[in-house]
């Protein structure tokens, strides 16, 4: 088996999204395994077309998970009587901005971001119980 043949096999694996491949030819046996990053990429590109991703997201941005530091009740609204929220999807926030409140035994704790960026997704609703370490929101940031 020549180097070119092996390259062909790798291309075959890529085209068919295979994680591993075992080929036996006479005395020679070759086993190929895709690196985990590679296989993740395969899944990602198949679920969301690359063109779409490139359009909406700057290249060097990353998603940050904003996690709860308390167990308690999360509030997205500062005031129960109005439907105004601290932040909504697409809002630009800077480090230190308030994004919600957590009530723990009648004490209200302000929840603030420690990165700057754009709110990509809000994963909790107003008045929802949250656990410690639960992801509350996703923040798209261009910080290092």
């Amino acid at each position: 088996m020549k180097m070119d043949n092996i390259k062909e096999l790798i291309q075959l694996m890529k085209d068919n999204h295979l994680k591993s491949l075992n080929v036996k030819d006479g005395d020679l046996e070759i086993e190929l395994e895709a690196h985990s990053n590679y296989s993740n990429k395969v899944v990602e590109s198949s679920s969301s077309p690359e063109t779409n991703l490139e359009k909406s997201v700057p290249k060097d941005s990353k998603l940050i998970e904003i996690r709860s530091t308390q167990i308690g009740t999360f509030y997205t609204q500062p005031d129960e009587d109005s439907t105004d929220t601290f932040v909504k999807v697409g809002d630009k926030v800077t480090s230190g901005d308030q994004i919600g409140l957590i009530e723990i035994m009648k004490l209200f704790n302000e929840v603030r971001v420690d990165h700057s960026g754009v709110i990509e997704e809000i994963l909790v609703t107003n008045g929802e119980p949250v656990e410690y370490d639960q992801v509350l929101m996703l923040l798209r940031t261009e910080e290092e």
Partner: protein
Amino acid sequence: MPKVLVANRGEIAVRIIRTLKEKNMKSVAIYSVDDKDSLHVALADEAYCIGPASSSESYLNIERILSAAKISQADAIHPGYGFLAENETFVQRCEEEGFKFIGPSGKLIGLMGNKAKARDTVGKNGLPIIPGSEGPIRDANEGLIIAKEIGYPVVVKAVSGGGGKGMRLIESEKEFKRLFHEARKEAMSSFNDSRVYLERFIPDARHIEVQILGDGKGQAVHLFERDCSIQNHNQKIIEEAPAVILDDSTRTYITELTAKVMANLHYESAGTVEYLYVEKEKAFYFMEMNTRIQVEHTISEMITGIDIVEQQLEVAFNGRLTVNQSDIHMNGVAIEVRINAENPRNNFMPSPGKVELLHFSQGHHVRIDTHLYHGFTISPHYDAMIAKIITYGHNRSAAISKMRRVLSETVIGPVETNLDFQAYIMDHPKYQANDLNIHFLKNNHIIEGGD
């Protein structure tokens, strides 16, 4: 259907959740980030992550636990042992927020938590106490007078003490002042409370304790007693029920007296009164009371057939015990061996890590209480106890034989454990002959040095 939040982790959380399931009650687990793959989390009907691994921000954090109780709409909180089980403030906060605390009143917990007050209270109520000063001592001169009265050797102990801190053994009058001041200084730096009291020193005793259940309204029963004399630096490692060293009349005397005093104190839920027992005098001396379920409650369950957690739930929700003293009988002997993730060959250094080999022996009259499973990672943040192995036999030697067989079959690895250490004790002729006291390990050179 009542819902109970279990404010604990590890084997005791698993054990409590099991009875809740059997009683058709809802169970709520709380856990730290480090415990997200723990068995108690998997077994409970609901589970809430309340904080990071550090106990002060999770299992010891009152407000976070109450927040989880509120979110889950729990009716009651079972504290297990350790953590907040004997914290008076926690009981008060549970009551303020409308959760039933499964245990005695905050007032009683506070009383028993103060060693000098506990001693005075039970003494006035008729339990035998070690001769000593009534309450804290003002100064060394007063101490010298009292020490002379009770007779040397004496022990000076911190009022807020525990674990041997702020404690000195004084053998004669001439070293009294020096050691008295040392103890005071250590008490101040360890507990921020320099008050100390005096007691006669009791050498070579056994540790014998009486298991109590009370309804909080003046009814209390005992589930006989346990002998917990095998200790490693004041830490129990093997327990037996009953204490076979006691003859029937001595057993009846101490168990009935203890139950009577606890009834008079309106003790609620499970509790244990610990005594030093001096064999040649057949004398008991009150040490302390533990106002909670204990690690070794299992062996009392084995010899009486009573589920102690079930009785705690009956008292909490229905205000009564479902057993009378006349229904409670003991049969046979049960032994519990505590298995810790530690290295006995390296000063009992804790040995946390992933459990990749796990096989518990089973068979007739074998009980294993554990939170281990294949692939579980033992966290370095918490207690090293990973399992309790309990065997039951028609007499002590049958229970020992069974324990030797069970220990020889059990495999836990690659973490280090004290399995072999415990097997060594089970094989020891003096242990088998029940020729022992609380200094067994030191006296037989199984461990080194002083306490």
